[in-house]
């Protein structure tokens, strides 16, 4: 059997590439995850359930869920609006606005938190103003939400904008010549066009919101039972040497992450198929 030209690596190269790949996945991903589960189950199911069901942990899960829900809704609405504006509107400073969208990608989570502290903290411009009008941002839910919104800002915009650009305006113009109103066009033409990209952006937003740690740590004050999200709870438990609690909440978060990844993967395949058909 001669080796065909498509086999660029050769037998030895293939074996080497395959082993390197397996090793990479094992050392960086699979073994640590697997071991964490082993350690967690070492505490026994009773302990784990008790830790997951403790009032502090439950509150942390609830808070994380609430923040994620808010981030998803706000990003879906405003992110789509911004994507439409960036793709379809012409205005001075559009290129700058476009570049600014990516800034949160470049900013460390801690720095994002710091930005919120600087802006909404007692010495910050907005912070002083809001404080005087009785609105508490830092060390409260609004701060956590703002920090999360900041780190998840680009996802929806960056997923939706290319699809909008590629779809062009033909269908919408056609609808307009048929007498459809702007809002009808938005709901009947534009949104159906971007729904797969929007869904993907929303899933990414949710994944990031669930796990956001650094930014939230800085702005929340990490107050047990009040402003502590699930990842913060893991960190707190770890620093308190309550490993059982840390592992217990971690396996819940990993399970959610796995579910998210599976959904993302399915979504991606579906979307690719649908968008390919459309193009």
């Amino acid at each position, binding site marked *: *059997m*001669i*080796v*065909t*030209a498509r086999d660029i690596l050769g037998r030895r190269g293939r074996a080497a590439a395959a082993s390197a790949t397996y090793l990479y996945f094992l050392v960086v991903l699979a073994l640590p995850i697997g071991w964490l589960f082993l350690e967690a189950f070492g505490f026994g199911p009773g302990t784990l359930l008790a830790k997951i069901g403790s009032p502090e942990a439950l509150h942390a899960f609830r808070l994380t869920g609430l923040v994620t829900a808010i981030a998803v809704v706000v990003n879906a609405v405003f992110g789509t609006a911004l994507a439409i504006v960036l793709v379809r509107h012409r205005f001075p400073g559009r290129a700058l606005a476009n570049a600014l969208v990516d800034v949160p990608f470049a900013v460390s989570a801690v720095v994002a938190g710091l930005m919120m502290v600087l802006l909404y903290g007692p010495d910050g411009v907005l912070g002083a103003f809001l404080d005087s009008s009785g609105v508490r941002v830092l060390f409260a839910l609004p701060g956590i939400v703002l920090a999360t919104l900041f780190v998840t800002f680009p996802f929806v915009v960056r997923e939706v904008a290319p699809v909008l650009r590629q779809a062009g305006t033909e269908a919408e113009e056609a609808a307009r010549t048929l007498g459809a109103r702007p809002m009808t066009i938005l709901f009947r033409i534009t949104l159906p066009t971007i729904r797969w990209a929007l869904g993907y952006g929303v899933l990414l937003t949710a994944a990031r919101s669930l796990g956001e740690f650094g930014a939230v740590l800085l702005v929340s004050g990490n107050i047990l039972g009040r402003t502590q999200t699930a990842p913060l709870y893991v960190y707190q438990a770890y620093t308190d040497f309550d490993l059982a609690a840390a592992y217990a909440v971690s396996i819940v978060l990993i399970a959610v992450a796995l579910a998210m990844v599976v959904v993302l993967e399915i979504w991606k395949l579906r979307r690719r198929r649908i968008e390919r058909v459309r193009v």
Partner: protein
Amino acid sequence: MRIEVRNLCKAFSGVAVVRDVSFAVAEGQLVALLGPSGGGKSTILRIVSGLEDPDSGEVWLGGSRVDRVPARERGVGFVFQHYALFPHMTVRENIGFGLRVRKHDPAAVAARAEEMIRLVGLHGLGERYPHELSGGQRQRVALARALCPAPKVLLLDEPFGAVDAKIRGELRAWLRKLHDEVGVTSVFVTHDQEEALEIADRVVIVHDGRVEQDGSPEEIWRAPANAFVAEFVGAGNRFAGQVRQGKIDLGFLSVPAPEGVAEGENLVLLCRPTEVFVDAGPALPDAPRIARIAFLGTTMKVEVEIPGRDAVVAEIPPSALRDKNLAVGMPVRLCLSAYQAFGRDSLATQPATSVTPVGTWFMDGGGI
């Protein structure tokens, strides 16, 4: 260099694509592998080049057997259907690639590449990138690249498949001229019978993984080896008939039977539209009538409906149409000036390769 393949077989995941194919190409010839898409032609070509290895069978180049020699050592030039030019290399780098990887002296590579650029008529385009070229120009680069290392044989996979119809004609004539200049033994794959018949020295018809016929363009045209070849090279009309008293009775028409057919035998007749003549006929109730007339350019396509049968297609010169005052709806007489007759049973039950024509008939008239 002479190419010979013997008893090639190849299956992809259990599906036989090439079945016991043998043929030879004489030194310096330009041979076409012609057949419908998916018939295994490209696979045969890829096996000859070494891009695919056969399940069984042999490939000979000159005096040596090469079917176990990897493509990179086989010394064949291959032109891909979609060019497969290297997008990040200039035309010159693309063409010189084959020599460069063999560690030739850079000056010699440059000189040879320049020679090739001139040969294919791309002067001044050496520094362009493939995406800056038209389809026809890309095709020329692909050809120059394949020829540059002076291959033993040149293999072309649907060389004109990706260029538009207008340029295809030009490229075709140009390829024939280039072949005569360079003289390298060449095989090209095509599904376009016109293309194959026009420029090939010999045509090998491949269908369903088998060789159906192997002959000169004229032989293929004049004497198709079987019904498949006849239909593939343009016999568009198909009639069922029976031998009666030395003639073939088609129901609406009797035509002379070839020698050696038995009385009562069932036959199939294949007839090209250009061999069907149409003339005004008596207005009988079941007479053939003209259903449609379409303008094809140099000829007119006339579709004649015969009650209870498939329509017959004829191609006649516009002048004939005018002279005979033919119009849609008119009753007509038909006659077949040439046709091939094939045994009907064998056609239906046996693979096409084993169906030999019962006879071929050329004549000036015939009719009701």
